[in-house]
């Protein structure tokens, strides 16, 4: 397939759509199938914006099906996602997007669709296995009941054999299909010469099935007449139920991460040698290409500005909200956003060579070097499992001498009664319940073992920008430049706020948000990118708001360059407005609460040491480190870890990502760049520092519940194993004990889900 590169004018709109038809771009969100008659049928996925209710999905489906060449369209209101099957000979992806836009919605190609498809298959498979096991175990229980309730001799032997046969038939799908993951897991563990939870589980299932089968078909044989298909299937259903819940939690976390992706631009406007502009997929970009980047777009690669002057939001990279000025010759990085004016950029590095990708790679590397967080339950699991296997084998050997007829049943009783069911549920069930409770408070966890890190953390490193301070700027003061000769202070503020409302520049937005201002009847409003605003008020005076030079101020202090706005009237400078970061309302309270619960709070910042120290002192942090590059932040956290501290990191922006991965447990603010979220163990959706305190309290409770669960499971085993070894515990009682102990563990864990009044 050759690249259908659309050569169009500089206007984005339709041209951006045309680039979707480029083969490279198209294959990122399209899967191919052979349709009837040899036509290639493409299945494309789009993320749809603007959908508010289920009704929208029907409207959209109808709109898509009306496009010529569309075979089928399905829109999910829950996932905000459209899947369209279309005939490659009759339509193109751009036509599909046009149809969605014409229906009043927005659409972007969904490159994560492949991963979602995989998740759906995984989820369906898990539910299917669980249903087979649970439904069969219910039916088997019904068939097994007569044997339990009848007195000696009441059940005719041939009827008993018929019931056993029914149980066996229904246990077959459970064994061959539902229990397959346990056998596969046991095999994988054994192949690597290790022991896992799956080994005794698989062994217990296999022995119980073989022995029960023998008993069912040959009641007089070596396995006796007792069958335990009911215990077997219930046990499999319990275990699969636990695994299914875990899978759901994992999928939800993955889906919420994907929703944040899409920072890099899909298409770019490449300048052709003859001076024209063509829209191509960002993947087609090569070093040396010259691209035009309109205001509001992200840069697709690292490069240098050739023409134009603008301001760039590099918050993604530095975490700093302040826009950075760029003029011809300055370097720009991929993923940062052009805020101000269109520029022409020469691309020097693309794809994996960009700094953006380098930071992502650094983050992955840091994560593989993560210090091992010891996991309580699993640390004990391996020795425990060995003990169980040895005990079962020993019991079988001993009983084969004492009473060969009971040897197999004693071994099965030991395997079932010690089934690490309760023990394997002890950790995950409590952690899942805690993660669910945290999610309801707005703390989403990506990894469950982050809970242990949260509970044990001794030191919290907090990134300043976007974490303790908001990503937005705020106006902190006004200084008169005319000696108070003109209008009053309040009126001057109103003039500035009212004029600033005409612009989308970050400083203007901060100014406009500051006070409610009358409209003043501005006319002839002109915004000169990189300079400022100019407008005439109702009395015909010419006001200017913006740069010092724009407002006629000769030489401002260099430090004021990025954070001040000047206001002038008829060429006469009137006032200068200063801006600063806004400290989050709850930051000081959050720091105090954390310190009260025994956590050292350290401030890390890429900003100047002086500003970091000032903020740290204002908030009462234990230490403040300023002027740190990402590498230095990483070193600071690493040094604390070498001192033996359990370090938690709370950050924002991509520059934190390596540090987030290095820390024992990491949290990201919900407003941060998405890569930081991908690297962090958890996300604070509400961006409140107080949530860390609440999450830590919950994590400590969760760890307490885990310890209780493990203690209970251990006590249960300590009591029942001797009984089983002595032959006093028949397998049905062992099965009942196993189910009861698991249920108790689950109920204990469920306590975590309940709201706790202001946890300590």
């Amino acid at each position, binding site marked *: 397939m050759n690249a259908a590169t659309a050569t169009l004018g500089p206007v984005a709109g339709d041209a951006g759509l045309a680039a979707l038809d480029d083969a490279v771009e198209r294959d990122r969100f399209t899967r191919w199938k052979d349709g009837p008659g040899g036509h290639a049928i493409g299945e494309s996925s789009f993320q749809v914006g603007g959908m508010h*209710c*289920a*009704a929208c999905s029907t409207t959209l489906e109808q709109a898509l099906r009306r496009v010529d060449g569309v075979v089928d369209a399905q829109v999910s209101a829950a996932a905000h996602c459209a899947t369209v099957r279309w005939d490659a000979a009759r339509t193109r992806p751009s036509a599909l997007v046009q149809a969605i836009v014409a229906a009043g919605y927005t659409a972007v190609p969904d490159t994560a669709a492949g991963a979602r498809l995989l998740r759906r298959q995984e989820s369906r498979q898990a*539910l299917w296995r669980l*249903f087979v096991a649970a439904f069969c175990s219910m039916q088997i229980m019904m068939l097994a009941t007569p044997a339990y309730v009848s007195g000696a001799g009441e059940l005719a032997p041939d009827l008993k054999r018929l019931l056993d046969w*029914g149980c066996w*038939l229904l246990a077959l*799908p459970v064994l061959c299909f539902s229990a397959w993951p346990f056998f596969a897991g046991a095999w994988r563990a054994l192949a690597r010469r290790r022991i896992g939870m799956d080994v005794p589980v698989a062994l217990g299932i296999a022995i119980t099935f073989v022995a029960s089968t023998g008993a069912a078909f040959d009641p007089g044989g070596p396995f006796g007449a007792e069958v335990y298909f009911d215990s077997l299937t219930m046990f499999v259903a319990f275990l699969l139920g636990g695994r299914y819940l875990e899978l759901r939690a994992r999928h939800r976390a993955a889906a919420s991460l994907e929703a944040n992706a899409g920072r890099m631009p899909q298409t770019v406007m490449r300048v052709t040698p003859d001076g024209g502009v063509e829209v191509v997929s960002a993947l087609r970009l090569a070093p040396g290409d010259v691209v035009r980047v309109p205001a509001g777009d992200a840069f697709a690669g690292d490069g240098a500005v050739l023409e134009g002057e603008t301001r760039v939001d590099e918050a993604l990279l530095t975490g700093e909200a302040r826009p950075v000025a760029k003029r011809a010759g300055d370097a720009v990085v991929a993923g940062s956003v052009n805020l101000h004016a269109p520029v022409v950029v020469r691309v020097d590095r693309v794809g994996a060579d960009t700094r953006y990708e380098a930071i992502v790679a650094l983050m992955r590397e840091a994560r593989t070097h993560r210090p091992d967080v010891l996991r309580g339950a699993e640390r004990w699991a391996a020795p425990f499992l060995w003990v169980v296997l040895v005990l079962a084998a020993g019991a079988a050997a001993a009983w084969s001498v004492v009473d060969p007829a009971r040897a197999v049943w004693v071994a099965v009783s030991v395997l079932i009664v010690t089934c690490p069911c309760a023990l394997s549920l002890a950790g995950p069930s409590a952690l899942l319940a805690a993660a669910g409770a945290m999610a309801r408070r707005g703390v989403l966890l990506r990894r469950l073992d982050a809970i242990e890190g949260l509970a044990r953390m001794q030191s919290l490193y907090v990134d300043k920008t976007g974490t303790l301070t908001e990503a937005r700027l705020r106006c902190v003061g006004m200084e008169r430049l005319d000696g108070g000769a003109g209008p009053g202070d309040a009126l001057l503020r109103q003039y500035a706020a009212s004029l600033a409302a005409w612009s989308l520049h970050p400083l203007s937005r901060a100014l406009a948000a500051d006070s409610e201002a009358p409209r003043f009847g501005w006319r002839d409003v002109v915004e000169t990118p990189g300079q400022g605003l100019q407008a005439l008020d109702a009395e015909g005076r010419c006001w200017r708001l913006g740069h010092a030079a724009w407002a006629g101020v000769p030489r401002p202090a260099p430090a004021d360059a990025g954070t001040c706005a000047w206001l002038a009237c008829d060429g006469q400078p009137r006032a200068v407005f200063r801006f600063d970061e806004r400290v989050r309302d709850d930051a000081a309270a959050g720091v105090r609460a954390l310190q009260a619960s025994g956590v050292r709070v350290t401030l890390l910042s890429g900003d100047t040491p002086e500003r970091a120290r000032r903020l740290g002192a204002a908030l009462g942090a234990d230490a403040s480190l300023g002027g740190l590059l990402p590498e230095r932040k990483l070193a600071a956290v690493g040094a604390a870890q070498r001192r033996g501290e359990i370090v938690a990191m709370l950050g924002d922006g991509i520059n934190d990502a390596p540090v987030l991965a290095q820390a024992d447990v990491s949290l990201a603010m919900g407003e941060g760049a998405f890569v930081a979220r991908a690297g962090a163990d958890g996300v604070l959706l509400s961006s409140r520092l107080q949530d860390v305190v609440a999450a830590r309290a919950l994590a400590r409770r969760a760890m307490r519940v885990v310890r209780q669960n493990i203690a209970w499971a251990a006590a249960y085993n300590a009591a029942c194993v001797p009984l089983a070894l002595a032959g006093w515990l028949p397998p049905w009682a062992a099965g009942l004990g196993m189910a009861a102990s698991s249920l108790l563990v689950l109920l204990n864990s469920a306590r975590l889900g309940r709201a706790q009044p202001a946890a300590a």
Partner: protein
Amino acid sequence: MDILYLLIPLSAVLVLGILGVFGWALHGGQFDDLEQHGEEILDIDRDQIDLRQNP
């Protein structure tokens, strides 16, 4: 009680049949999105049923 000899095998086979039906529904995607179709009846833009139409 002789009828049990017919009913028990029948019920076992029936269970396998039910499993098959559930599997078909599951793999047909009926459990992928449990909210959407319930909310569809609230859709006012949907084509109305033509009451004058003769069966």
